[in-house]
């Protein structure tokens, strides 16, 4: 595809925010990165008895969405709501709405499981005839349906532009940047709210357990003894505007993106990383950059045997052993459909703070990995970062962020 790919105008991240197991807002995330404190703890989600660690966001059980938002009330939308409240994000969106009008601001969200936890609870509460409870059926549209998150964010922010939810498993909230860029370039909106939310549920906990992909301890990306992933949950959002309209020296911008599929298997990555290589190559082409311009690669780095070794092949073939590489999943866990926005915001923080986080929980780098995997944090000025996200269905996305 690269032959057809043209450089894009960078998109300024006018505002961004993130809630993970490390805390609410970018401040606690940065502190955790600097202090090398993981958000992963032994699984204490509902009555789950799996021996694994999770990155659970504190406090989601202790409040509910009230008033006109009540119909949206579910774990996923509570987490979305918490995310929207942080880092002055609502104020920045209100300003964009003022500048452009509610119809000219798009909402493109990513999630993999939306509010499925509601459906899981409803199936446990079926009556003797097998019918689902009324509290659930009347609210399915606002909770579990895949569009629920997009609808909820649009209502919370009072926006009336194009809205949709991208759901391509783990790559969901990376691909929202690509969709938003297309909407902006086609002139269908002047600004876009991108982001993603995924929350803990039984489906993913027992599903990844069935696939034997859950680590029994905190995940250890790139470690020679890595034994699987840890699930986490997160909400992250960014306000995107063309850098031709909103440009501030030093502001973080999306420089490029690449999307691809493996065309190989539903849950195993392509053995040579062919799809991943395509995604990275197209991201570089859209950014108008060469591989040597990338200083840090935020790996997908789930800590499964297969992902980390195949991703290493792809990254090494594109970049060699030059850029620093690390996975931040040891802090947050794998937040699935929210992984794209989680790691995009972390990449933005790395750029603004001059921080390269070393891979947490990686005691000894797998000697088979050829990329330059960092174990300890480093500091120093950064101007270009690549972030990889790969998901089920062989769906890949690579983002390049930099400073204007």
């Amino acid at each position: 595809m690269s032959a057809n790919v043209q450089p894009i105008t960078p998109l300024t991240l006018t505002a961004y925010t993130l809630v993970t197991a490390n805390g609410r807002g970018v401040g606690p995330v940065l502190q955790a990165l600097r202090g090398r404190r993981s958000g992963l703890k032994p699984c204490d989600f509902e009555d789950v008895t799996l021996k694994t660690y999770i990155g659970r966001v504190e406090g989601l059980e202790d409040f509910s969405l009230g008033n006109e938002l009540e119909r949206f009330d579910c774990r996923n939308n509570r987490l979305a709501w918490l995310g929207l409240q942080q880092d002055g994000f609502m104020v920045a969106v209100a300003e964009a709405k003022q500048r452009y009008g509610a119809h000219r601001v798009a909402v493109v969200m990513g999630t993999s499981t939306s509010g499925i936890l509601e459906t899981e609870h409803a199936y446990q509460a079926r009556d003797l005839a097998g019918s689902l409870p009324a509290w659930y059926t009347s609210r399915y549209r606002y909770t579990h349906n895949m569009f629920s998150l997009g609808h909820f964010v649009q209502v919370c922010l009072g926006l009336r532009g194009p809205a949709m939810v991208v759901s391509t498993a783990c790559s969901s909230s990376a691909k929202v940047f690509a969709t938003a860029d297309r909407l902006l370039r086609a002139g269908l909106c002047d600004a876009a709210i991108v982001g993603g939310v995924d929350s803990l549920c039984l489906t993913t906990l027992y599903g990844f357990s069935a696939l034997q992909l859950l680590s029994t301890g905190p995940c250890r990306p790139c470690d020679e003894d890595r034994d699987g992933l840890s699930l986490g949950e997160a909400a992250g959002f960014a306000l995107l505007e063309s850098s031709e309209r909103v440009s501030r020296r030093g502001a973080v911008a999306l420089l490029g993106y690449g999307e691809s599929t493996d065309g190989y298997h539903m849950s195993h990555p392509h053995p040579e990383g062919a799809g991943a290589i395509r995604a990275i190559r197209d991201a570089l082409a859209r950014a108008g950059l060469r591989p040597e311009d990338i200083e840090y690669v935020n790996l997908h780095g789930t800590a499964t045997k297969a992902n980390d070794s195949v991703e290493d092949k792809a990254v090494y073939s594109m970049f060699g052993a030059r850029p620093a590489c690390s996975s931040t999943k040891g802090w947050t866990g794998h937040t699935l459909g929210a992984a794209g926005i989680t790691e995009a915001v972390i990449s933005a923080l790395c750029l603004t703070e001059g921080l390269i986080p070393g891979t947490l929980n990686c005691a000894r780098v797998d000697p088979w990995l050829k990329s330059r995997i960092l174990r300890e944090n480093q500091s120093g000025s950064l101007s270009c970062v690549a972030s990889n996200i790969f998901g089920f269905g062989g769906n890949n996305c690579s983002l390049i962020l930099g400073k204007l």
Partner: protein
Amino acid sequence: MMKVAIQGIGLLAPGLAGWETGRAVLAGHGSFQPGEMPDPEAALLPPNERRRSSDCVRWAVQVAQEAIAQSGLDPREVPTVFASSGGEMGVLDTLCRTLATPERVISPTLFHQSVHNTPSGYWGIATTCQQSSTALSCYDDSFAAGLLEAVTFVHVEQRPLLLVAYDLAVPAPLNEARPIAAGFAVALVLAPLSDAALATMQLHLTETDQEPASHLQDLALEQVRLGNPAARSLPLLKALATGGSERVIVSLLESQQLLLDIDSCRH
């Protein structure tokens, strides 16, 4: 303003099995007789993949392969967009039943088939396509959102794209929450303007809501349109079946509409 060519069409629904049949019915050359639920072969799927595949996968692949065949394009060169309100509702029903048992032993295959991009993944496996593929949802307006994403992609990237919209009948008891009684799947190959087009389509996104969304005169077909999110494509399909020039209006959420100016090409 964005204008694209339509180069291939695929269709599958009760009484509308394939574009040739569907076109005759929608053009008024035959009566609409819903009859039995189709059981598509989706011949492009390798036999072992077809055996394990969900209904969504077979319906989506069936219409996708029909549209791609008509376009004459190599599927490995064509990016895709899959639009569905709820995706794999049948798989989710099975998973949630199992998760309500004390043991919670779920099938790993069923788990990776539960994602919204399952048909996208199987299409990639069947064709070995490695192009970009997006799966999205916009509840009842999923077809409109998919069409917007697809036309925008063709417009800004200047390359063909395959759009597939589908929603299948929802099994009990999940149908109490989302009553969709019959499946519907449609596929369109969209491309930059060229001589090979069946029709051209100009898309205009508007915030005004003065005119109602297009509907169908035939009451039975109108019931199909209202009963399945993917069937919101029917007024567009009817315009393509009838030929000539026509404006079709499709709702996108309460606040916006897609104005589609269809112009059939006569060769």
